[in-house]
């Protein structure tokens, strides 16, 4: 009986921690997918005039804006997990479009051989159970997504 009373709180804490870790993993997967889909949508929209004229792939002029818009749309679908507005998080993201190749990314140092859209963002998500366990109530997920057309 005494042993049960001693161990039960520990098991409750372990259960809460496991659930919070699992929820955090879901949040990480969603944020990554949001950034991936946003960059994919942006690079799928090609400059048709340039494609018809020269046959080469070149990003649409509004690729960066499209990536940011869709990043916000995707994040909005998981708004209950976020610590902040989806629009504000997307607005603060570092979105870069490299319409022609080769190009160098000054943030990552990467060299792109094709037209590329890149999103680098910090996304704060709520982790209330961690907060109750004297850890951080908000965990920041860093995400980097890069897409190029083929």
């Amino acid at each position, binding site marked *: 009986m005494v042993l049960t009373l001693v161990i*039960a709180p520990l*098991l*409750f804490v*372990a*259960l809460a921690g*496991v*659930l919070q870790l*699992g*929820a955090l*993993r*879901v949040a990480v*997967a*969603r944020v990554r*997918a949001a950034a*991936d*889909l946003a960059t*994919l*949508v942006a690079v*799928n*929209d090609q400059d048709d005039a340039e494609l018809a004229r020269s046959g080469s792939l070149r990003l649409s002029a509004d690729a960066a804006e*499209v990536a940011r818009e*869709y990043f916000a*749309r*995707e994040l909005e*679908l998981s708004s209950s997990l976020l610590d902040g507005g989806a629009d504000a998080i997307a607005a603060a993201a570092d979105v870069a479009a490299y319409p022609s190749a080769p190009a160098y990314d000054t943030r990552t140092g990467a060299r792109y051989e094709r037209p590329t859209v890149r999103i680098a963002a910090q996304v704060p998500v709520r982790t209330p159970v961690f907060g109750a366990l004297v850890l951080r109530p908000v965990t920041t997920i860093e995400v980097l997504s890069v897409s190029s057309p083929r």
Partner: protein
Amino acid sequence: MPLLFSILEFGSALERWLAQDAATVQAARYAGELGGDTPELRRFVGDELRTAGIDPDAVRVDVAPSRVGWREPVRVSLSSAYPVSIPFLFSTTVPLRSSAISRGEVNR
């Protein structure tokens, strides 16, 4: 004992949620490519879910709008109920919802 089962059951539910999320993202991407809700998309979703070990008949699929043109957003949502059973405590179902948005690529 119930607490240990809770860890296992909810862990399993979260794993299923992740798998459903992944299938939803792929489905949204494909819906944009096809221009909306088509039999090919439904087959694709079914295959993705089966690959993840999820019964497609137990998952509701919504595509809105059902037909999109070039540059129009299309949203795919998957929802299901995962049964959770904790011995000596309770049995319930946990609703799992996943959504993703893509953009129409078909120039009609």
